[in-house]
Every structure is written in structure tokens, then in C-alpha cells.
């Protein structure tokens, strides 16, 4: 399972790549494996506000619909339009072409509450029993 070391992670299996005041976010490799083939992605509109830990959209697979929670609070500055026609990018490349949105942070201090790669790897190992 791929857990890149340069990202931060949530307990609900989202990742975020922090670059200054902006973060790029998606769902983790573990999340896409658990969900199976993803058929639909619902992301918030560009310009909308998201709150850390609160639902901001959903991903639908043939097994289930799961909420995506915002890894950080802020404003949605970009949304990956390719996912509309190619939701399978979330399965094929969850940390690259399968990115979901970019958030302009309201409070970068919040980010310290997220897990690093080592902590997330341990968390996944524990929750996968």
C-alpha cells in the first residue's frame, strides 16, 4: 500500500499536500482499495467554504457511497474536473491524477492535528485488524 511520506493524513482516510497557504487533497490508496471501483465523485463547488472534519463531498463505488471529509478548513480554490468523466482516476492514481480539490487554508495551525505518513501507516494497520 502506498503512503507517500510528504503528505498529511486524516483518520477518515483523506490526504493533503501542503504547499504554503494552499493544500491539494484526495482520498488515500487504502481508501480506494477498500471502496473498490469508484463510479462517481461529488466534490464541493469552487469558491465554497469547507470545515475541517466536516463532510464536503462523497465518493460512490459499486459497494457503497462514502463521505469525504475536509482535511482542513478554508475555501475551495480548484476542483479536479477530470473526475467527472473519469472517476477511475481515483483508483488508478489516488495521489496524482486522482486529486479531488485544492483548499486555500483559513488557519494553517489546524494542520498540526493531522497524521504524518508513519502515524497513518500505523493507524491503517490497526484499523485493518
Amino acid at each position, binding site marked *: 500500500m502506498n503512503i507517500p511520506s510528504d503528505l498529511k493524513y486524516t483518520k477518515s482516510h483523506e490526504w493533503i499536500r501542503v504547499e504554503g497557504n494552499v493544500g491539494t487533497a484526495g482520498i488515500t490508496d487504502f481508501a480506494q482499495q477498500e471502496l473498490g471501483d469508484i463510479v462517481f465523485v461529488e466534490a464541493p463547488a469552487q469558491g465554497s467554504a469547507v470545515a475541517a472534519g466536516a463532510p464536503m463531498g462523497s465518493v460512490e463505488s*459499486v459497494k457503497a457511497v462514502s463521505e469525504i471529509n475536509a482535511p482542513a478548513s478554508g475555501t475551495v480554490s480548484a476542483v479536479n474536473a477530470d473526475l467527472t468523466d473519469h472517476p477511475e482516476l481515483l483508483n488508478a492514481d489516488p495521489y496524482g491524477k486522482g486529486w479531488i480539490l485544492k483548499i486555500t487554508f483559513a488557519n494553517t495551525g489546524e494542520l498540526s492535528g493531522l497524521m504524518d505518513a508513519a502515524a497513518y501507516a500505523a493507524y491503517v494497520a490497526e484499523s485493518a485488524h
Partner: protein
Amino acid sequence: MSRPIEEKLLFEKDHPGRVGASVPPSDVPEVDPRTLFGDMVRGAAPAFLPEMSEVDVVRHFTRLSTYNYAVDFGLYPLGSCTMKYNPKINEEVARLEGFARLHPLQPESTTQGALELMATLQNALCAITGMDACTLQPAAGAHGEFTGVQLIRAYLENQGDARKVMLIPDSAHGTNPASAHFSGYAVEQIQSGPDGCVDLEALKARMKPDVAAIMLTVPNTLGIFEKNIAQICRILHANGSQVYVDGANLNALMGITRPGDWGADVMHINLHKTFSTPHGGGGPGAGPVACKAHLEPYLPRPVLAKKEGRYLWDRDRPKSIGKVLGFNGNFLVLVRALCYIETMGADGLKRASELAVLNANYMRSKLRPLLELGFDGPTLHEVVFCDKGLPGGVTTLDLAKRLIDYGFHPPTVYFPLIVHGALMIEPTETEPREEMDRFVEAVAAIVKEAEENPAYVKAAPHNAYRRRLDEVAAARNPRLTYKP
């Protein structure tokens, strides 16, 4: 059975000039509708409707029916759906001319029998659930949820206490969050404890003035009875909040315990689950809502009333949330449900619930050596297994598809979400032991196949009308219209 016929679509079977009925030639002159209706007539060409004879149409649908699986054919262990057998006497009664040929706009003076039937059903549902009032209008379970949540909303707003949050445990039915969200509430999930029940400390900590209600499925989707339900009701009420019970699993409780006695304020009842009305083709369902007296003024209009020995529709309901459906619900479904209640009687309904729990626990103990349980606590009318320990890389989906080859409808899979690779089995009380044994033998055979030849199981079904369908392609690129 011999090789099934590959049946074409009706559109592909069109045979111009062929008709199903001989209509005598018109003895009045034909009129162009445009001269009568002008621009209201749309479209230059008539719509393409296939032309066929009666025998073409009857054979088409009869052939399609042979590709189907039904509870009349065998065990249908679709967990959470309560696919019990539907007694044929229900059909007899629903076909009585006085019921089948009624029109909903007939004057009340000509429909007293039908209204009495509806009043009797309402009273029976109140008696079974421990509630004070009931509406039969909602056409399905989720529609009932929506109606019930609207009652809560109207009640709270009428108190000048509009609240924003609906609490829903992670073991609830998937429709609960949708109904709450659709009614304008923010949904907050409450985690289950290790015993599969609501964590009381977490619940108490969340009791703030913004909580409108909790929606609880009892027993929950793990088949576990919420043992602290009375205390949960007290905690919510002390906070000025309401308690909604999802009655989809009422089949485990009839004659044994009543939501109204726990302290619940409102609930819906799925007649197509617990009360043996047909489930087929996604409907027609019926999701009556029963509530306590304080919510009664908000029930959908019109409300059935009785004055001077006559039944009538009371439309003077100023606090009502309004109509939630045209006319009076799926009336003939209501006829079937009351027929079931009357033929079973109070003792029979209690016995049905007892046997539903017994059958599920029989399946649980017989399957336990083969599959791993999702939660290891006492369960009622259904049992959830997980995919842990399935040999040969075989998944829940593979097992479900292979069950089709053994002549069974698969159980509910991948729900509830809190169990990994969930396999949710609900035999209901109407299954004889031999049929359940046949299912257990099939699972045992599939687990053995998974050890010896997993690739074969992963390619199932092999004997069905169709091989494994590409569900991913169907979801990603749905083709919903016929194009010649």
C-alpha cells in the same frame, strides 16, 4: 430447465399492422386533433409504440418472468429487506371487486367499507407499535422516514424551537441520513460501541440545544437490539429532542416489545416487509407512520375521522405538514397488510417474530463454522458475517455470485458499512428448516470450492441466464434509453 430463450425488447419485436384487439371501424368522421386543440398538440409524428398481438405481449412478459428469482421460488435471504412469503389469501382479498375497482374520488358515502378497513389498519398498527395515531399515506419506507422527520420538524418549529442537527448511529439504515438531509437537517453520525450499540457516554456528551432528534433503527442493521433504548429516549427527551424509530426491522419485535412503550415519538412501518405485502419490482410499497399524540396535529392531510358512526376525511388540519402523496397511499397494499394481520391474529404475529429470530439464529449457528461473524453479540432477526477468512482471495461479491448458481438469491452484501465485506442474512420466519439447510450446504460447498479452485468461484455465476455482469461499466456509463 431447457436453454432460456433470448428475449428481445418490445421495440425490437414491433410488427407494423399487428394489433392486440379488433376495434370496430369508426362510424363517425375522423377529426384532426389540431383543429380542436391547436398548439396543445405536440409532435408532428406519432410516438413509436411497438405494434404487437396479445400473445406476443403475454409471451414476452412470461419469458422475462422465467429469468427472475422470487420468494415463491426459494429462500431470499436479503438482509434488512424481510423477504418473507406473501400469503395468497392477501391476493384473493385485494382482488375483491369492492376494493379493486374503487376510485379514490368516489364520495365517502360509497366507500365506507374501504375507509373502515383503513381505520382498522391504523388502529392495528398503533396497537402493535404502542403509538397513538397513524397515517397510511407514505408510499414506501424512506417516504415514511421523510414524513416522520417532517412531523418532528413541524412540531419543534411550532414550539419556536427550530433545531438543526439529526443524530444517526453508524448502524442505522442508509436511508436515514438521506431522509434527515432531505428534510433540512445536518446529519451527525454517532459511533457504535464495541457491543454494536449506541455509546451512551458519547450520546450524553452530544446533548446540546441544537439536537432535533435521533433516528434509531431497532434492532439495528447488525440485528442487535438497542438494549439501552429506554434510557436513550430519556436522554433525548431531557434535552428537548425527539426520538425517531426506523421500524424496518419491526419483524423482530411484534407482540414482544413496542417502540411507543420505550418512549419513541414517531416511527415508520414497512408493510412490504413486516406485513407480508409484495416487495417486487421496487414497489408498490407502503410506509405508514405512527406517532405519539403530541405529533398527531401535524400528520399529513386529510386525516381519517369518524363522526356519528360514519367515516370521513377531515381536511381541517391547520397544523398539518400537508399531503405527502396523491390520494390515500397504495390502497390495495393496505388491504393485503390488514388481511395478513387479521389472519395471523395477535398470537400469530408474536409467533412470527419469535420464529424470525429463531430462524436467523439457526442460520447463524449453522454458518458460524464456515464464515466469520461481523459482531459477536446476541442477534435477533438477521445475522451479519464478514469476509475475513474467506479462502483463496474470494470476496463477498464472489460468494454472492456463486450462490446464484446454487439456486439462491444472494444475501445483502457490503452493508452495513461497519462490517468489512458484510454478508447480511435474514431468512425470515417463513423459511422451513430444509430450505435453510440447503442454503448452508451451498455456502459450505462454495467455501470448499474457494479453497480448491478459487478462480472458478471468482468467475461465477456459471449457470445463470447471464455470466458476471460488469457492474462498474454499468455504473460509470449507464445506458438508460433505447435507440434503434
